[in-house]
């Protein structure tokens, strides 16, 4: 019990150099002109908004872009995720897990920030469903 209550969540420690770097200079930020699928995700808890677009060729993620508003954690995880899956197989993108995202961020995410970190993953999963449904 005391361990749960007094566990020192990273606090400002989550704002590591690379997190802030991805926040201030997000990779793959913007639009794809002729995307194959687009998905808009909204986190009503924080007001974060994220639009993901994907371009697929030969079953590979040819391009992935995102834009929207969000906190440092939400933007950084979107940015890192986009780097992770770009150029990879669609199935690889489809099988990304929560743990993969936490590993990419490499910081301790408190329960109250989990939604911020995983917004991009929810959007990605729905995006791929939309893509597969269309095909």
């Amino acid at each position, binding site marked *: 019990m005391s361990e749960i209550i007094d566990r*020192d*969540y*990273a*606090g*400002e*420690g*989550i*704002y590591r150099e690379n997190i*802030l770097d991805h926040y201030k200079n997000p990779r793959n930020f913007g639009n794809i002109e002729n995307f194959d699928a687009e998905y808009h995700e909204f986190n*009503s*808890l*924080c*007001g*974060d*908004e994220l639009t993901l677009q994907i371009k697929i060729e030969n079953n590979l993620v040819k391009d992935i872009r995102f834009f929207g*508003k*969000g*906190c*440092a*954690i*939400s933007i950084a995880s979107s940015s890192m995720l986009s780097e992770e899956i770009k150029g990879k197989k669609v199935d690889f993108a489809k099988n990304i897990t929560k743990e993969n995202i936490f590993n990419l961020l490499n910081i301790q995410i*408190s329960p109250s*920030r989990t939604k*911020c970190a995983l917004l991009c993953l929810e959007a990605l999963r729905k995006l791929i469903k939309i893509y597969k449904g269309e095909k």
Partner: protein
Amino acid sequence: MKMEILAKQLDIEKIRRDFPILRRKINGNNLIYFDSAATSQRPKTVIESIKKFFENNNANIHRGIHKLAEESAFLYEEARQKIASFINADTEEIIFTKNTTESLNLLAYSLFKDLKENDEIIISEMEHHSNIVPWQQLAKLKSIKLNFIKIDKEGNLDLNHFKDLLNKKTKIVSLTHVSNVLGTINPIKEISKLVHNNNSLLILDCAQSISHMKIDVKELNTDFLVFSGHKMYGSTGIGVLYGKKHLLENMNPFLYGGDMIKNVTFKETDFNSLPWKFEAGTPPIAEAISLGIAIDYLNYLGMENIEEYEKYLTDYLYKQLSKQKDIRLYGPKNRSSLISFNLSNIHAHDVASILDSEGIAIRAGHMCAMPLVREILKEPALCRASLSFYNTKEEIDKFILSLNKVRLVFKNE
């Protein structure tokens, strides 16, 4: 009389000792709790009253013939009396609910039975979701028009727009007393006159005002008034609906079941008299009793003293925040004890996370007022610092200093 009240200063150090949680350390720092608008902390007397009830008196109310049942019912009804005199109402005009949201739903569902197609309801752009969604959803069922009073640039209600909206078809006006986002204190006496001259009903959401200023239902002349226990130093799970007796008598119950009946046959039911007509099922008895204890505590401090001290704190916080060039404040200068703000280029969640690492608890998000925050203020999220009489000037100083840490982390110096 007035002199006596003003002469009695609050002993803040002593008050702080009444709130055990204020001894908590968060990440090695003393807790600075600036989130009382979300839920206040509880004094020892309130916490102990719940334990005491379960250890000594616990039984169901209005049913048993035994001693404990009598004691429980007595304590429950005594709490109702305390609440009634706290807002200058009659005891039978006080109905226990779960919270402000349930009180508003009770009103919406019960009053809607008498509304006809093309009737109109007025609320405002600064309402909490609990005073938007029930009306919005029920309005759809009956083709009833829901109008929103605009707010001006300062964050005050546009009363001219309100006058334009009022018309013969307006049956209900439901407004917040104090905005939980902007801190605006709405001019209820003036609004009440306009509403009643128009033969409409006035509902007042006092969730954000009840623990900060003296509320008198007769002075405000409101038909209904709602609030939650947990924002006024009581427990969660208990809320209040006040209604003028003659109105409540003519309204249908919202929830049906045990305790709200006088006589039940397989074919028909006679409803109980006020206030029990609206209290179906076993209520949160301990929570209701502890709300009475919270009111004892507020009376002991004196609402005038609370208002005076919190105004001093709020003015100080406003002044300190106004000095910061990269901070945008939302709402009017003259306000209740909460301030919403944003630091430029830093998301509210990041501000809250870094302040949390310093032991400072603030709210970050849309404050359950998405239409206001997103559509009017055009922000994805806001930070909100909300104060209580257990806060101090020193805590505000530490909070202001900690904002530098936020800037430092984001290299926004």
